[in-house]
């Protein structure tokens, strides 16, 4: 798309929904708007129905847990003393947390077939209640996506008719995609020949990190950032 059309479209979105959104961001040709959960339904209805917007499809909905955003598993500054072996702390320690906003967010990806535009809507979930309104009344496809987000992150959707777990096992407890849920899980299942039934036990696998998570500030991208800011 040519830059003019993009600019025009950005303006359209801003004009129409400016009073409903908290902030917006345009990067990699993708427009993101952030909304408070109180305004979510009103915004979504507007996005779907108004001319020039017409986002008739909810392409994707997903939960995000920002609790360990920007944290490294391996601080390279003091590595020479500790050795380069497995100097890794898989547990989340009390290192400085860079994330100031609420822990959970729900991200909606919308698609307008009529205009050929995409839009990303992010809505942070109030931390006390972990409840945000359901958009199933606006897009029917939200049904399973919200069940999935509830299952994996424990975010509850108000006015969803059928908020059951979707992907995890029957009788599963916990929300596996939260960052504090261990990768190897909490229980393992085996068939016990003497008891003649399947039994659940705490996992026997030791958690380990093969490649530590590191953040390197690449000069090439730092420059890009400066350019953007100026």
């Amino acid at each position, binding site marked *: 798309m040519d830059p003019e059309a993009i600019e025009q479209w950005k303006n359209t979105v801003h004009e129409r929904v400016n009073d409903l959104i908290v902030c917006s961001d345009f*990067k*990699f040709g*993708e427009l*993101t708007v952030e909304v408070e959960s109180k305004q979510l339904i009103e915004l979504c209805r507007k996005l779907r129905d108004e001319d020039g917007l017409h986002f*008739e*499809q*909810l*392409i*994707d909905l*997903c939960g*995000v*847990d920002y609790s360990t*955003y*920007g944290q*490294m598993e391996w601080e390279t500054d003091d590595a020479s003393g500790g050795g380069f072996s497995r100097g890794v702390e898989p547990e989340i320690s009390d290192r400085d947390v860079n994330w100031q906003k609420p822990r959970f967010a729900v*991200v909606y*990806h919308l*698609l307008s*077939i009529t205009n*050929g535009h*995409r839009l*990303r809507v992010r809505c942070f979930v109030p931390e006390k209640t972990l409840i945000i309104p359901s958009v199933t009344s606006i*897009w*029917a*496809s939200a*049904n*399973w*996506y919200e069940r999935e987000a509830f299952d994996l992150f424990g975010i509850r959707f108000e006015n969803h008719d059928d908020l059951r*777990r*979707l*992907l*995890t*096992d029957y009788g599963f407890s916990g929300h*596996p*995609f939260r960052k504090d849920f261990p*990768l190897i899980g909490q229980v393992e299942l085996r068939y016990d020949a003497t008891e003649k039934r399947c039994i659940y036990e705490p996992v026997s696998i030791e958690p380990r*990190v*093969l*490649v530590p*998570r*590191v*953040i*390197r*500030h*690449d000069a*090439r*991208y730092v420059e*890009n950032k400066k350019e953007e800011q100026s």
Partner: protein
Amino acid sequence: MSEIRNYTMNFGPVHPAAHGVLRLVLELDGEVVQRADPHIGLLHRATEKLAESKPYNQSIGYMDRLDYVSMMCNEHSYVLAIEKLLGITVPKRAKYIRVLFSEVTRILNHLLWLGAHGLDIGAMTVFLYCFRDREPLMDAYEAVSGARMHATYFRPGGVYRDLPESMPKYESSQWRTQKSADELNQGRDGSLLDFLWEFTESFPSHIDDYETLLTDNRIWKQRTVGIGVVSPERAFQLGFSGPMLRGSGVIWDLRKNQPYEVYSELDFDIPIGKNGDCYDRYLVRVEEMRQSTRIIRQCIQWLRENSGPVIAKDFKVAPPSRKEMKDDMEALIHHFKLFTEGFCVPEGEAYAAVEHPKGEFGIYLISDGANKPYRVKIRAPGFAHLASMDELIRGHMLADVVAMIGTMDIVFGEIDR
């Protein structure tokens, strides 16, 4: 008279027509389905969480295993998302190779779909024919990547390596005579491109064969016409994409409407249906195979005429060649860094979608600047399609459940993730 009650039936998870591990709880009134409640997640492997615990380049293999009948298309959207965040450009030859293999994959997918769908609703022969045609395409996969299915061929910045100049050949052995080896080696004398060219020469007539078996077949029509009708409005509401959306008459194909790679330079048509039933979706997919053949031919012609690099020459992302690594210190360091730590991706978020054989397959990546993605969300087309099962199947007969599962082209690798 005894009391008549609805009957609840479990369909799957090990029913052969459930296309994997679908457990469908059906409430039946006689043979009429009153309610369907799909239970999914029996193949849930937490791919997204696994990807969050690994460097970017180590998760490409996981993408193959999502929709395990259209492997390279899954990789495609993943590498596109990474490239978007990194801001690297892919050499043109790599783009053509990617498109070539995306279309090979589309044919692979549709052939399996056609065969399995036919088998489910009573056409045994098509299944065997379709698998015959899948064979050369899998051989193309093998020639280029070494694996017949899980290729891990697309890499951030391009593709793993250039197309081979010769095809691997069968050899005679204790179990195979020279004569049968020679028969199998027919068409394998040239390069991979010659091999695929030969495939595109014969394949359209094979599609004609399938169509003579099915398109006007009375039983086939009885089983598909008017079954699972979706209006365009409902298709939007339900988040349909790909052939499921086009079957309802909506002209929407990411290859045309939001072109990526080199699709804007290629000449092909987008087939659409009229009535939005299983039969129209069948016709759409069959026509898509013909169009894919056209695209493959155009790609082959371009690739024959133009040579060049197939992966970006950015050693921070793509490894240097083995040869360089052996006598250049810096190349060795790059190689070591890439394969121990991986590359760091600048902070940001991106969504990249491709027109996957089943619909829109998207990857939503959030990076916090680390060598591992902070969040990966896989937007699988089958997930949205299966979610609509209850709505589409109400009022249909029990036997139509199988036709519906078939027409949605369900693969559990991507739905359960």
